[in-house]
């Protein structure tokens, strides 16, 4: 078993004729993911990397049975494309697009809840179950199958940690990016519940950052998880009230400080890494321990 993915997904790429869409369609196909269709309004009838392109999600679902979408549509049209997926029967939506307006994200996430569609992102690198499949943009060469479940808000930092784990001989059961934006469809906490039930996952790495209270809420589950958790938090040195990069990590109104998150995680029983290269040793220790 793996988390969120089962390998049977029939994947649609929304925005497949774009630069990122076509590049990552090829990369997903290389990795063995079943990309069955693309959508690019006005480009219906074309093909990208051998994948047929449709004008609408409706056609892609009808003609190719797509049930999962990986969305690369630029920010201005991302919410529109996401709603198209939601209303046309897509069950898992991986919203890779960065810079989606937060009001748009609120609407997409709210509607997805009503329709019970799982949304990962926006601003996510996606999901990878090494050796089984991937939906997203992570450089899959750095991942390898194994016992560590990885969940992160940040993309590149999680690649760094995955690479460190792999280099230390620690493969990953599934790595999930919940997305770096303020409002996302799936929380750190929710991914932990999946790891809890996953036989293949024997330890969990949680990569968090300042801002919001997602880490504190996830921490509440750690004691009952039955698996060791290694947490790595960034933003310890970030000034208060300054937005740290695009992702919107920001300490506001006294919420979301490094100290508060670190304390919550530590008290819940997580081991805390202070650098990316401390993560793998702590995981090894916790698995032995």
């Amino acid at each position, binding site marked *: 078993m793996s988390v969120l993915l089962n390998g049977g997904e029939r994947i649609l790429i929304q925005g497949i004729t774009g*630069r*990122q869409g076509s590049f990552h369609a090829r990369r997903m196909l290389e990795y063995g993911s079943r990309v069955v269709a693309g959508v690019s309004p006005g480009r219906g009838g074309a093909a990208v990397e051998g994948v047929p392109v449709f004008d609408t999600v409706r056609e892609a679902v009808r003609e190719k049975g797509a049930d999962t979408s990986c969305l690369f549509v630029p*920010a*201005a049209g991302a919410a529109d494309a996401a709603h198209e997926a939601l209303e046309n029967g897509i069950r898992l939506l991986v919203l*890779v697009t*960065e*810079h989606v*307006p*937060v*009001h*748009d994200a*609120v*609407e997409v*996430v*709210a509607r997805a809840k009503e329709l019970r569609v799982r949304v990962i992102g926006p601003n996510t*690198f996606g999901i990878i179950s090494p050796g089984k499949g991937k939906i997203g*943009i*992570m*450089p899959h060469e*750095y991942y390898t199958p194994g016992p560590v479940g990885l969940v*992160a*808000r*940040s*993309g*590149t*930092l*999680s*690649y*760094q940690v995955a*690479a460190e784990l792999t280099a230390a001989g620690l493969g990953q059961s599934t790595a999930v990016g919940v997305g*770096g934006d*303020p*409002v*996302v469809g799936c*929380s750190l906490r929710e991914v932990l519940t999946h790891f809890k039930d996953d036989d293949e996952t024997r330890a969990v790495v949680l990569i968090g*950052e300042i*801002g*919001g*209270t*997602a880490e504190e*809420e996830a921490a509440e589950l750690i004691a009952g998880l039955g698996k060791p958790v290694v947490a790595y938090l*960034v*933003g310890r*040195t*970030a*000034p208060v009230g*300054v*937005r*740290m*990069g*695009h*992702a919107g*990590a920001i300490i506001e*109104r*006294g919420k979301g400080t490094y100290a508060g998150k670190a304390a919550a995680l530590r008290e819940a029983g997580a081991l805390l890494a*202070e*650098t*990316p*290269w*401390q993560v793998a040793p702590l995981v090894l220790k916790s698995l032995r321990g």
Partner: protein
Amino acid sequence: MKLYEYQAKEIFARTGIPVPRGRVVLSPEEAAQAAGELGGEVVIKAQVLAGGRGKAGGVRFAAGPEETAAVARTILDLEIKGLPVNALLVEERLPSERELYLSISVDRQAGRPVILAAAEGGMEIETFPEDKIRRRFVETRRGVHPWEGRELAAALGLRGSLLPEFGKFMATLALVFERNDAELAEINPLVQVGSHLVAADARLNIDDAALFRHPDLTKGQELGTQGGPSFVRLGGDIAVLANGAGMAMATLDVLESLGGKASCFIDLGGGTGEEEMSKAIGILGGFSQAMLVNIFGGITRCDEVARAVIRGRQAAPQLPLVVRLDGTNQEEGLRLLREAGVAAVSTMEEAARQVVAQTGGKGEKEV
């Protein structure tokens, strides 16, 4: 993007939220003229994008043109949290009978907007005792109706005609919030004048990612808005170029624990073009003793970063440069750097240690 108080009030007024009479001025002379037009007592407020303005002497009262000009001169000479005061808002002084607090912001955990209200106003909401704050989540697709405001007003203890007044007020503030893609719309204090409510202060922060659909709000924006690289100024001497906010913060944390400190950093958003990247690198070089490029390419491609580094470096060719590239198209990136005479290191840890050593940091502290 944070708007100045006077900009926020313009938008509020246009949507139907009562604000004090007043206008923005740039000089003591203009301030005097405004005070003359308004008559009576006025309040003169520094227009800066920083909190704690009142404590810093940036909000003062005056009566008549002469006193107003003097006060305006004093405030224009201030520096508030490192920011110069370039403009003032001169407004009628309201005979406030009561002060309230009202705001709408996006609640990350709930994934939707939340309205906060309190029957006291004027101080920062962070300092309010939790039991004085009333919360109400917004069902965005339904919008906010006046009745929701009336219920909130009743919970705050308001009575009589203030109830329907607060209801309309809150529904209108929600419209401002929604129509302008706001992250925060805040009125603190919201004051009662007779049987009416007036926004005595106004904060409106717009979601940078949504600025593309508010062309009227953006002027002279260059860095820091969506699409381009995100630039943050810090206090140290090492310029940091990283991709992804998480990686950037990790880099800053690691530098600090090794005894170094970043002067500024740029988060290259996924898919930033080479042109923009090299421009950003040029800017960074300007106020730094050394530069650290720390990239793990996913959607970002190492070869593009390498080209940008080589080009951008021409603006400051003597600046010590440490580069670490990993991920997508790594080989090509490393080859380009080699050909340009730039040595790349292979791990983040090594890169951080090298750059700290080059800026005189001890680089010894174990992490």
